[in-house]
């Protein structure tokens, strides 16, 4: 069974600094997606960034980038130039690429990020 592990329950960063959130996963599949979602106090889940496992190039979305190490099954999120609005719970997630009965979307336990002014 697939699992997703986030080993940092809480992190803190100074405004304008850089922070990295860690995520590891376990799967026997070769074709899948990995995601980082953000959940602010409003509770609405927001997609931050997505990585397709078949792509070697790390995904980047403005100040957010990932370090995807497929062999190590590691998928960390780097937030550059942190802003107060980045404060939220961050979830790492895994999903198989193709549909059907095994197409579960599995989440980690989350990392609560605080941004200090």
């Amino acid at each position: 069974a697939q699992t997703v592990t986030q080993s940092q329950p809480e992190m803190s960063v100074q405004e304008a600094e850089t922070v990295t959130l860690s995520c590891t996963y376990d799967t026997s599949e070769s074709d899948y997606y990995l995601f980082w979602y953000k959940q602010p106090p409003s509770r609405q889940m927001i997609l931050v960034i997505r990585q397709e496992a078949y792509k070697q190039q790390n995904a980047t979305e403005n100040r957010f980038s990932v370090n995807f190490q497929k062999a190590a099954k590691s998928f960390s999120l780097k937030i550059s130039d942190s802003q107060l609005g980045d404060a939220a719970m961050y979830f790492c997630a895994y999903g198989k690429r193709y549909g059907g009965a095994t197409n579960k979307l599995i989440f980690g336990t989350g990392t609560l990020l605080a941004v200090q002014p």
Partner: protein
Amino acid sequence: DVKVTQSSRYLVKRTGEKVFLECVQDMDHENMFWYRQDPGLGLRLIYFSYDVKMKEKGDIPEGYSVSREKKERFSLILESASTNQTSMYLCASSTPEGGRGRAFFGQGTRLTVV
């Protein structure tokens, strides 16, 4: 804009009641999910559905059932609510290929069982 709508944002029910949580999506997505979110435990999958009338158990299905009679609607049923089912419930939908796996979430239902 894409939308996943959960029928209630807050709900208070009594122990032993049958509880229905409704979720509707307007994106014609094949997959729909029900998660439970508790502090320190993240999002745990209760059930998911990959097609009309098709369902699969997630990691914590005990005490819950689901119904998907139409593609756009996925209902979570607590047959006899108990206090340990007090939690935040999140519904999501996705399409495997066209949406590149991305899930869209509802706003969540905070259920309190007293």
